[in-house]
């Protein structure tokens, strides 16, 4: 029977061992960190799958295992039906990979075209249609008029697009994209996301594993999203269903003026407040934006009373539907939630 999954992991585990730093030459101890911890995951063929997690969640480690760069310690992983530990060449022929610092794998003294020519050769793109394929992928990512420019002259967005083009060279059915928009400006990020969603996923039917720590990205574009934390999948569903997980309670989006750090901490400790993310919105005006998660609507008067008592000026107040961000904070304990 044809395997319906493009990517499948069963009890996948990867542990890193490292020496403790700054504890003297003779006192260094070996510490173990479970980067991937008994991970079970199944991504269907043609799916645009988001993997969301804070830094250090294990996303990049998972991508590196799936592309055969890292051997797993325990468990198994199948990519396009091939075992990453035993059928490495078959796996490599099935995937295109974009690493989060993908542009560093290019040769800066070569043009975009020459770079792709090299990578096409080592990825077994037949010589007879190599030029045609390079021009195709350059056109797909909108760099065909920049093909002869030295890579070092490319902007950050262009470098990332070329990295995407490289991943597409051999026309693989599966793409592993590790934080493809990290460090890019808003316009470049949107352009790359649109390309992945509309061209790669919808038009060409590629299976895409898209890792990111940007919540809005996966919320907008992915069919399903897994939230990963400390090497484990803590939730896996459609973006809407994940938002629903955070619906147990209320969310208030509040902008306040002249609220101290100590007052933020006091608010966080109030009964009925289940989570709080705070950020400085305008340092000149002394404004903070608070995203307060409440146990239920009955907790709201208590919070408002706190502001009046502490003489904190409310600039804006809005009761909101929980977002994927709320689900993320709740499930990973990220942000400043308690």
């Amino acid at each position: 029977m044809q395997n319906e999954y493009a990517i499948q992991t069963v009890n996948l585990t990867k542990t890193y061992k490292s020496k403790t730093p700054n504890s003297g030459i003779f006192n260094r101890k070996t510490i173990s960190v479970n980067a991937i911890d008994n991970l079970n995951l199944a991504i269907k063929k043609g799916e645009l799958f988001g993997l969301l997690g804070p830094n250090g969640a294990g996303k990049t480690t998972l991508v590196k295992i799936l592309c055969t760069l890292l051997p797993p310690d325990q468990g198994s992983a199948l990519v396009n039906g091939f075992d990453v530990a035993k059928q490495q060449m078959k796996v490599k022929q099935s995937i295109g990979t974009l690493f989060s610092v993908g542009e560093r794998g290019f040769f800066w003294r070569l043009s975009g075209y020459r770079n792709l020519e090299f990578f096409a050769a080592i990825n077994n793109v037949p010589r007879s249609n190599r030029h045609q394929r390079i021009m195709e992928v350059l056109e797909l990512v909108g760099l065909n008029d920049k093909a002869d420019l030295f890579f070092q002259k490319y902007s950050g967005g262009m470098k990332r697009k070329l990295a995407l083009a490289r991943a597409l060279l051999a026309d693989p059915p599966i793409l592993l994209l590790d934080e493809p928009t990290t460090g890019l400006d808003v316009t470049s990020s949107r352009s790359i996301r649109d390309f992945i969603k509309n061209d790669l996923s919808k038009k060409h039917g590629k299976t895409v594993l898209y890792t990111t720590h940007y919540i809005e990205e996966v919320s907008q574009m992915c069919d399903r999203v897994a939230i990963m934390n400390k090497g484990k999948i803590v939730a896996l569903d459609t973006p809407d269903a994940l938002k629903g997980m955070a619906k147990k309670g209320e969310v208030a989006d509040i902008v306040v003026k002249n609220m101290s750090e100590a007052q933020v901490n006091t608010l966080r400790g109030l009964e009925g407040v289940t989570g709080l993310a705070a950020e400085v919105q305008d340092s000149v005006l002394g404004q903070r934006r608070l995203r307060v998660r409440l146990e239920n609507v009955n907790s709201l008067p208590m919070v408002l009373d706190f502001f009046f008592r502490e003489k904190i000026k409310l600039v804006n107040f809005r009761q909101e539907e929980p977002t994927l961000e709320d689900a993320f904070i709740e499930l990973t304990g990220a942000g400043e939630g308690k």
Partner: protein
Amino acid sequence: MKLTQELDKIYYFMKRDIISFSTYKTNILLSVVSALFGALSYAFWGANASMPSVANLGMPVVTYLLIGLAFNTYLSQSLTLVQRTINPWSLEEVLVSPTGLVTFIVGSSLWGFIWSTLVIVIYLAVGVFAFGVILSVNIIGTIIVVGLGIGTFIGFSMIGAGVLILTKQGDPVTTIITLATNLFGNVLFPITVMPLPLQVISFLVPQYYFFTCIRPMLTGQTIGTILPDLAILGLMCAIILPVGYLAYAWCLKTARKNGTLSWF
């Protein structure tokens, strides 16, 4: 794995390196000037040397020195060739492609060899055209000796590169081999000028056999005259090359297992 496909990959590795190298024009010029100045310095010294200890070299001192200098540069290049291919980022990109380790090493090293050969030509040309050095090359013998020398040093280079992949900084193998070559290798002086215990060490290093073999092959002698030394060089190559490959593959595997491949 198709041979033509792998040869095609090797060609594109080389093409990449040539294009990249050609953009460093100042570096090319400085390399050529350095080779010329190095050759001239030793040639002037050699052409005017009259030391009794070098009277039994079997060839003029200038010829002895220039061959030693030229091929020492060649071996030094070979020794660091594999290390220079370890750019952690592009290494990862190559390793996720369906390209074998042998293709990667050969492809990444080829241009370095070709450039080193051009530098040798500069050294020898200075000797021939400016100092009247007479070379009579035994082509087959030279190819065999150079092949075994390169094989041996690539073996060392792979061990050094493997150590570098694990330690990230500092490769004792390359340092030790370089020091051993300069002192015990019969490069710029015959080992007979050293005390006997040091001479014994020379017999343990492959560089000694390489330089003992290459000079007769460039000065009109037959393979028969170097056969015992050539056999020892061949034996050393047969041991060091596969050991180097296995060491490199093991270090690479270990770094991948530990997830430290790109930690440079």
